[in-house]
């Protein structure tokens, strides 16, 4: 993401801004591919263990709180909308609306993490964290710890990516306030937007797989 400190300055090895912008987007899409495959590895583990122990999954997922999961999904969807709108307004040189929407997106991210924190606290209280003190007696199936290992690692890694996303949004928020962007040059906002949408996209798959097992 080679950008310039001020205005639409083109780096020396690019011919024009358009080439620089499309290179940045292609570069980020390639990075999103690695994110998809990183989470993909965990989804493969999920699919294998669920196929091997379907009823264990059904029994083990009852401890998950569907309501909190549902709220989190809605929160992320709203934040995706506000992110997309923010990108639009930055391109529209409407700095005030962009700042408001970026702050809203940041707030949604924070709410998501707070709800996640309460869910985790509840699991820790029931000794469901798989670090040796896992409470096997709460389940009839012997390897219920696998479900919770999957749960904690997948939602944990996703939560980490939400935090990184919030960091990027904050950085972009500050630079929008300092009027660094204009309709000519808004690459960082666009790239942060893409990253945030991918984080939402991963959660769209995580929510049904983890919380909604019939």
């Amino acid at each position, binding site marked *: 993401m080679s950008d310039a400190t001020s205005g639409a300055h083109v780096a020396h090895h690019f011919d024009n801004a358009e080439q620089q912008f499309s*290179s940045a987007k292609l570069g980020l899409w*390639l990075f999103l591919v*690695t994110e998809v*495959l990183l989470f*993909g*590895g965990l989804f493969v583990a999920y699919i294998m263990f669920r196929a091997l122990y379907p009823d264990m999954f059904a029994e083990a997922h009852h401890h998950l709180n569907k309501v909190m999961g549902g709220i989190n999904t809605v929160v992320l969807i709203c934040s995706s909308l506000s992110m997309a709108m923010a990108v639009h307004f930055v391109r529209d040189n409407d700095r005030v609306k962009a700042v408001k929407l970026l702050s809203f997106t940041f707030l949604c991210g924070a709410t998501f993490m707070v709800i996640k924190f309460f869910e985790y606290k509840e699991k820790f209280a029931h000794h469901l964290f798989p*670090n040796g003190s896992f409470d096997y007696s709460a389940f009839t199936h012997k390897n219920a710890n*696998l479900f919770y290992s999957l749960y904690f*690692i997948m939602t944990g890694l996703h939560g980490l990516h939400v935090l990184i996303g919030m960091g990027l949004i904050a950085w972009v928020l500050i630079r929008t306030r300092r009027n660094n962007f204009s309709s000519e040059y808004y690459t960082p906002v666009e790239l942060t937007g893409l990253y945030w949408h991918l984080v939402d996209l991963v959660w769209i798959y995580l929510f049904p797989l983890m919380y909604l097992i019939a």
Partner: protein
Amino acid sequence: MSDHHDAHPVGTNFYTDQRGLKSWLFTLDHKRIGMMYLATTMLFFFVGGLMALLVRLELMTPGQTIVSAGTYNKLFTLHGAVMIFLFIIPVIPAALGNFLLPIMIGAKDVAFPRLNLASYYIFIGGAALALLSIVLGSADTGWTFYTPYSIRSATSVALITFSVFIMGFSSILTGLNFIVTIHKLRAPGMTFYKMPLFLWAIYATAIIQVLATPVIGITTVLLVIERTLGIGFFDPKLGGDPVLFQHFFWFYSHPAVYIMILPAMGIISEVIAVFSRKHIFGYKAIAYSSLAIALISFLVWGHHMFVSGQSELSSTLFSVLTMLVAIPTAIKVVNWTATMYKGSIDLKTPMLYALAFLFLFTIGGLTGLFLATLAVDVHLHDTYFVVAHFHYVMMGGTVMGLLAGLHYWWPKMTGRMYSEKWGCVSAVLIFLGFNVTFLSQFVLGRDGMPRRYYDYLPQYANLNMVSTFGSWMIGSGFLIMTIYLLGSLSRGAKAPTNPWGGKTLEWMTSSPPPTGNFETVPHVTEGPYEYGVK
């Protein structure tokens, strides 16, 4: 950003444009980063090579020769890990690729110079972690870290797996950078089919780097968490399945062997065409077979697990798919040989290494057929036959390709000519030593000597002795090479801009090239191998 460019004073180049350590440590110039990568990776090549000599020394005679069993296990693990993660994966793409890619497509630099420097420092960080793990009693699980032993082993496995995780990022960033550069920064007139074949190979490698490396990232993270928290994915005591770990590991590691071999194939296409002074035979066939190999490489990882307890269905599927890899590889080898037909062959050192590549890689490829056939692999898996196979393909293939490229572009990169006489001597020595070392291992493996054995039965003793003598020949060959290459930096003759009569863009600029690569933006009109009378 680097300062604005005025007309270039004659006689200065990217070494002399800026001076001082800071200008190297914070450089954004792809050529400097390329040279730094080259120095670091070749250093690790000698560290890994030293360990190889120690392993062979231990195996010279049955029973304890120089080290105890525990140390031997650590030695072969380190030899594997250092050679693979610290040398052979980064060396051609990151060192030669970084230096040459922008020049060959007529660009001023890679698409994201800062990302390029970040990738180098992430690589250094990973390497430092690996050295730390060596100091704290290195791992003894083999470079594959198979569970559950890698979970149970008391040695510092977590550190070296975490260093592999870090170096994975460096590989991703290099791959990402190259794909965007090739797509977006080609000089006017340089269509995809006017690109040199080395760049096709680097492009295919970059695709694999971007698509496969994240999976080793998640695998190493899961292994580290497994060792610290005990999540149980791969630990049979907690309900997990060790074979699942093998799937995760090989989904990356087999494409990784193609990350190693494809760039070398790219170099060989360049060197054979230039030193036969003839248009490459079947340009499109070779270009497309690079992409085909990159795609098929993702379908075949299961041939490492034929006897691991995986189902017969998947062993059958993987055996069929593995057979497909032979076709694009064979096309490349046949086309290289056909290129030399009616050419004007000049046996300089790069060409010697290219011929050695053809000789050794053909053996490596053909022995792959033994291991892809299910019934024979059940006998040969995890024996010295496999060790010999992958050394023929990796050392006989990638390292010969690397040495061919190193000598071919040495004048362009350093502005100096190496000594041709000593080049030939070390090439012949390495070639002979290599065959002595590893042909004997084919026979050992065929007769059932398992891999990673500290002590072996008496019937395998003589061939192990022969193999160790061979390893000494390789060692001395590389010693001679270090001496004359480093010597050429000070005493070597000044290199002309185009010592070998190459037609690709890097031979159009001065050697070593200026920081901006070209005085004026080149306009490409003809293909990379325009030799011969139409």
